[in-house]
Structure formats: structure tokens, C-alpha cells
């Protein structure tokens, strides 16, 4: 036992459980309408395109481009104090134009971050209970992806 602060607790709902179960299994899953194929993030009970309620989490490629990023210099929660500075980013997933996910970019020097760069998903365990999907430079993964 240490007194290191815990990460923010995630309490999945029936609507969001697929995302966190996926992350724990090393998969990025995004909600998709089974009627019209539209991906939706953040998860919602209904498809905003066709109003179908038949929505499920599907595994996606994990490829994305960097839309915007910000280097967090001040912590707003005890868990993140020791992680400063860290990169909060909005990425556009390869599956669909405008399909945005907010995440972290890790293992990329700040000077090497540039808008539009290719990213791939990777996973980071914040605690035994919580794994989050984060992104890193596609070039650092090499030809294996």
C-alpha cells in the first residue's frame, strides 16, 4: 500500500461499459450504429443520423491523426500532479471524418508533436482497475502496424 493518490474512478454505465472492457483487453472500441454504420463518440442511446437504438461497441483500427493538443502544466486533481507536464489531445479516428476522441499523447517529445501527425493507440494502466487508451506516434511503432 502506498499513499499515492488514486486516478479518477470510472463507473461504467450500460452504455459505456464496452469502452472500458475494451481498454482492459487492449482494444479500442467505439460505439457504432448497427443500422447505418455511423460511429458515435461519446456514447449515446440513439444514433444521431438514423435514430436507431441498435448501437454496439466495435473494435476500430486504432489509427488516428492529431487534431489539437495542449500541454497541461497545472494539475486539477491529485493523481495528475506527479505526471506534469502531460499532453491532452483531440484526435480524429481513421474510421470516419469528424470522429473525434479526447485522449493523451505519450512518448512523443513536445517539439515533435505536430497537427495532422499520424498516431496509433496504445494502452496505459493507471491502476489495477483502470486502463486507458492513449496514442503515440505511428512512426515510433514502425512497420508492424
Amino acid at each position, binding site marked *: 500500500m502506498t499513499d499515492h*493518490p488514486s*486516478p*479518477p*474512478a*470510472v*463507473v*461504467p*454505465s450500460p*452504455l*459505456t461499459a464496452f*469502452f*472500458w472492457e475494451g481498454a482492459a483487453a487492449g482494444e479500442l472500441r467505439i460505439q457504432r450504429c448497427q443500422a447505418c454504420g455511423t460511429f458515435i*463518440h*461519446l*456514447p449515446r442511446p440513439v444514433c444521431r443520423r438514423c435514430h436507431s437504438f441498435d448501437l454496439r461497441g466495435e473494435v476500430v483500427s486504432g489509427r488516428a491523426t492529431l*487534431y*489539437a*493538443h*495542449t*500541454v*497541461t*502544466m*497545472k*494539475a*486539477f*486533481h*491529485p*493523481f*495528475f*500532479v506527479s*505526471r506534469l*507536464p*502531460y499532453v*491532452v*489531445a*483531440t484526435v*480524429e479516428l481513421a474510421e470516419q*471524418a*469528424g470522429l*473525434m*476522441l*479526447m*485522449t*493523451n499523447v505519450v512518448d512523443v517529445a513536445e517539439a515533435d508533436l505536430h*497537427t495532422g501527425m499520424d498516431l496509433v493507440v496504445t494502452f496505459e494502466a*493507471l491502476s489495477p482497475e*483502470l486502463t*486507458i487508451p*492513449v496514442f503515440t506516434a505511428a512512426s515510433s511503432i514502425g512497420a508492424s502496424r
Partner: protein
Amino acid sequence: MKSRRVAIVGVGYSRVGRHTGLSERHHAAQAAIAALDDAGLTAADIDGSTTWGGDAIDFAYMLGMNPLRWHLNVGVSPAFVTPAIHAAMAVATGQSDTCIAFRIMMQQPSSATLASGEAMLGATSSEDTQFLYPFGNFSPTQWAGLMMNRYLYDSDATEEHFAEFASIQREHATRNENALQRTPLSAAEYLAAPYISKPLRLLDCDYPCDSGSAVIFTTEERARDLRQPAVLVDAMALSAVHDMNFEVMADMSHTAPVHCAEQLWSRTDLRPSDVDTAQLYDGFSVITFQWLEALGLCEPGAAGPFIAEGHTRLGGSLPVNTDGGACNVGRRHGANFCIEATRQLRGQCGDRQVPGAEVAVWANAVGPFAGAMLLTST
């Protein structure tokens, strides 16, 4: 139902300051009394009340304004412009003859308090925040950092332009005895200030405080008999283009102000070139940049150079945020822009008066939602 022309006849603030120790009710009472006095009205003249912060019915009853014919507490929405537009709408449609709009705002916990765990922002895990908090995203400064990063990429603006903007706003604040920050600020001092969420710096953020603001709307006809020169509502517009998750907007540089401005200009014969002064939300300075472009007050993507060329200074072609903006007068959540626009059109701004100002636009918020009002002096 015939629409009536609406005027602003009274404006007022509470004793705004850092950790005042006063309650929402106290700030509401001070602001309302100041606005009634400004207008030459009494509590008995008020028959409508709207607010963001506290409770509109509670404030009105406390102040002896009753019975009410119109009342509304707005939820999360584009700052003061929402209670303001709903008050003006109530008067325009005859639901109310004289309606007061409030924005009451109490200072929020500092990042040091949050980092220590002494205070928490919001719930631990809602259906939406579980996609934000585990990534260390808690604060509006972070979506503003994302927005500013993307804006610097999409536009002609540079960090030096933001430095100029901060310096010009502070220069305006030096001419406003009600501003909380009045020491001149150089562009170099801005650039030397710490980043909060890079590229967003401390001096890109509005200044936290406790504040109460109140504005009284009535009919044009009634306004002509009151104490102040009437300021008329020429056009107004609200917009929402996304849910509240700023962080997943697919275009962060062209957001609700674009749609809001289209609505606003479609409802008036005035054009952007008619505007004498603009009072544009600066909760984060990138928001003012977006509004300048969205309203057509400068070319798309050109707000940075426009500011650096001096257009937005007092004495420039389009003085902007002449009270110093919320970075300097403190977080009044948009109400200061309504009140400053009104005072400019009355010609009551002293050292910072825009000579002959007849048309003013004020605007609030960015991203998912926005609102704006066009005011005239005749």
C-alpha cells in the same frame, strides 16, 4: 402576437471582488439595487426576472418585486447573454413589461486547491466525464488550450498577437476605475507569464472573482420616460451547434459564434461595418479572436494581425472590450460586455468613451454555444 421594440434602461454591478465572503443573494441584491437606481425604477416596476446563478424568483421576492409575470433560471448556457435574451424576449412578446436579468457568479476553487484534493470539480464519473477525467482533463483551461492550439494552426495568429491583445485590454482597464487589474501590462510580461495549458497562458484567462450583474429591459416606449438615454436592442441571436463536450468538436476554430453571427446579421439592416465598438467575450482570449472573425469585423483567420495593427485599441477603427475585458474587470461571465456596450452607447464611459458610438455588438461564449446582441443608441 405583435413584437415590441425592447430597450436596456438600467445596468448595475454588485461590489465585485476576490472571495468577497458575500452570498449569491447579497450580490444579486446589490446589483439589482444599482440597476434600479441607474434606471430610475423601483422594485414595484419589475414584473419579470431571469438569472443564471441563484434563483430568479427568490431574488425578485427578496427585493419586493412581485408578483412576477415572467421568470426563468437558465442552466449551463452561453453566459449572461442567455438570461439577457430571455428577458428581452419576454418584453418583446408582452409576457413582461420590465424584466431584470441577472448573472451571479461565485469564485471557483483554485488549481492548487484542486491539486491537493481539498476540492473536486464536478462528479467523479458521469456518463460523459468518464471520457475526460481519466485522461487528466478537468478544467476549461484545457479545452481552451486545445482550441487555442488549433486556432494558431488554422489562422494567421501568433502567440505575439495574443500578447498584444492582453496588453491592449490592460491598457483599456487602466481607464476603468472598476477594473480589478489596472497595472499596465507589456507584451513581454504576457509572454513571460506561466502557461496553464500550453499554449494557453495565465493571462489568457478571465480573472476569478465573486460578481453580481443586473440589466433591466423594458419597452422602447417606457424607456423614453426613464432616467437614461434609451439603448435599443436591434437584433439578438442564440446558437448551439454541439453538446457540451468541447473537447470532441471536429472544428474548434469555427464554432457556434459563426452560426450565431449568421443569425444576428440576418435579423437587421445593419452591417458589420456599422459597428462602432464590439464587446466580445474573453473568458479565454482566443474566444475574442473567434468572435472578431465570426461577426465579420475582420477577415477570416485575420484577428491576430487585426489586433496587432491596433484596430481594437481605443482610438483604433473598432475599439474592442473597452472596459478591459473579463481578464481585467474579473469574471462577470459576459454581463460586463452588455453593461459596457450600454454605457458606451449612452456616452458615459469617460476616459475610455468611443466618440459618437451609435452601434455596439456584444457577444458571449464559444464552442458548442453562443449568443450575441446588437444595440443602438437611437
